[in-house]
């Protein structure tokens, strides 16, 4: 069972009106932006369930876009994000849709820009908590509550140990860890949620592991 903090109960500080439809949406946008990394020129939000039905009244649209503009859920500018994005020359669109078997508050964020097209799917599961469930074609699961390391690698024995060895070398504790793969021996992904952020040096070391094709360190939102 989750251990509650006083600040889970009183908090977060956020722009209203809804922790799941506004604050959670901003967090999904923010994480999607971090996953993208580079400059974004256009973004489409495919809204599912309650997100699709009430996104205007709850400001889910503004919150998602604010996240894409790197704002956090308590940023005053959140409510003006549509105008801010226009001024910055970022095209955006909100498209109600149906995503199969998805949580009622789910969005697929499809971003285009200097790194090509990347899509990130996330759900807002209540109280501002979120879960990211898909990046491009890869199903996975992480919350964005912790510094999170995401690698993609070839599914071979020993890769996981090499990564955790480097993390251990930094004296950083792993809170949660999950490994996913498409098929035995093929493309796989690792999600490691830690108590502290890995130093750049350690990330460079992980990048050098030959089975690993990409490494992302995502700061908590």
């Amino acid at each position, binding site marked *: 069972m989750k*251990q509650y903090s006083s600040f889970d109960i009183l908090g977060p500080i956020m722009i209203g009106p809804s922790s799941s439809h506004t604050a959670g949406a901003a967090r999904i946008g923010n994480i999607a932006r971090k996953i993208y990394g580079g400059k974004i020129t256009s973004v489409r939000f495919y809204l599912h369930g309650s997100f699709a039905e009430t996104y205007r009244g709850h400001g889910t649209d503004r919150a998602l876009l604010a996240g894409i503009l790197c704002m956090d859920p308590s940023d005053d500018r959140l409510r003006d994000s549509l105008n801010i994005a226009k001024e910055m020359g970022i095209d955006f669109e909100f498209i109600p849709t149906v995503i199969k078997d998805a949580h009622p508050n789910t969005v697929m964020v499809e971003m285009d820009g200097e790194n090509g097209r990347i899509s990130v799917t996330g759900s807002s599961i209540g*109280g501002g908590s979120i879960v990211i469930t898909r990046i491009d074609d890869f199903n996975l699961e992480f919350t964005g509550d912790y510094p999170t390391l995401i690698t993609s690698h070839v599914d071979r024995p020993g890769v996981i140990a090499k990564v955790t060895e480097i993390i251990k070398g930094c004296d950083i504790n792993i809170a949660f860890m999950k490994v996913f793969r498409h098929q035995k021996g093929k493309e796989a992904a690792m999600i490691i949620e830690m108590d502290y952020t890995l130093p750049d040096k350690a990330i460079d070391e992980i990048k050098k592991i030959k089975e690993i094709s990409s490494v992302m360190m995502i700061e908590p939102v």
Partner: protein
Amino acid sequence: MYEFKTGNELLNLCSAYNKSIGEITILYEMETSEKSREDILLKMKANLEVMREAALYGLTRDIRSVSGLTGGDAKKLWKYTEAGHTLSGTHTAMAVAKAMAVSEVNASMGRIVAAPTAGSCGIIPGALLTAAEILNSTDDDVINALFTASGVGITIAYNATLSGAEGGCQAECGSAAAMAAAAVTELVGGSPEQALNAAAFSLKAVMGLVCDPVAGLVEIPCVKRNAFGASNALTAADMALAGITSRIPFDEVVEAMYRVGKVMPYELKETAKGGLADTPTGKRIKEELSGK
């Protein structure tokens, strides 16, 4: 050492260490987060400041929600209260106005503290900020009282739910009122037992309250439920401070609230398919908004 999951465990800690619920909750937070007292108090102070700003904003500015459904009622009540002819008493009316103010600020995409949720964010600031003004409390005292509120909220989170989708409005605005009632009781100098009695009264008052937001938005009836949450909390605190006790202990009230929430139909748990959302006017509002 300071860990608690129920109201009874909280009371035992209070009596073992001869401390208030607020103080035990601070010690619990220090222990579980491994942060200093100073850091924790500062973090709560940030919450207090946002609550104050939101209340002031809602009472003095002309605000309107994104949908246009709510806004301006807090200011109306504040003006009426200032004229000095309230029936429910100036303090109650002030607390209610502040609760509505914060709730309206939330609906207008302003900055608030989820307390415990965004939908119920006006109740604790409404009741507590008003009590603090009456008592001339220091910020330190009010911050302590916010920990009282979160201590009580923690026990509800463990043993029931704080989510309208899971337990109806009783779980959101009911819990907020219970937390506010306990906080105000300790702020006045009441005992931990009195604080939990007050919390029990507040929850009992709204047991069974459904979550039926018109058009699915945190506006109708949320702003007004926040209003009544604040008056509920002040009334409950007065009753407890008078020495009245809850015949059903707080923990059992929380459990009962949870069970009531469990059997509450899906239509009445934030789905906007029942209650006020399902009235002719509620449905008309929804249609009008979707045409926008």
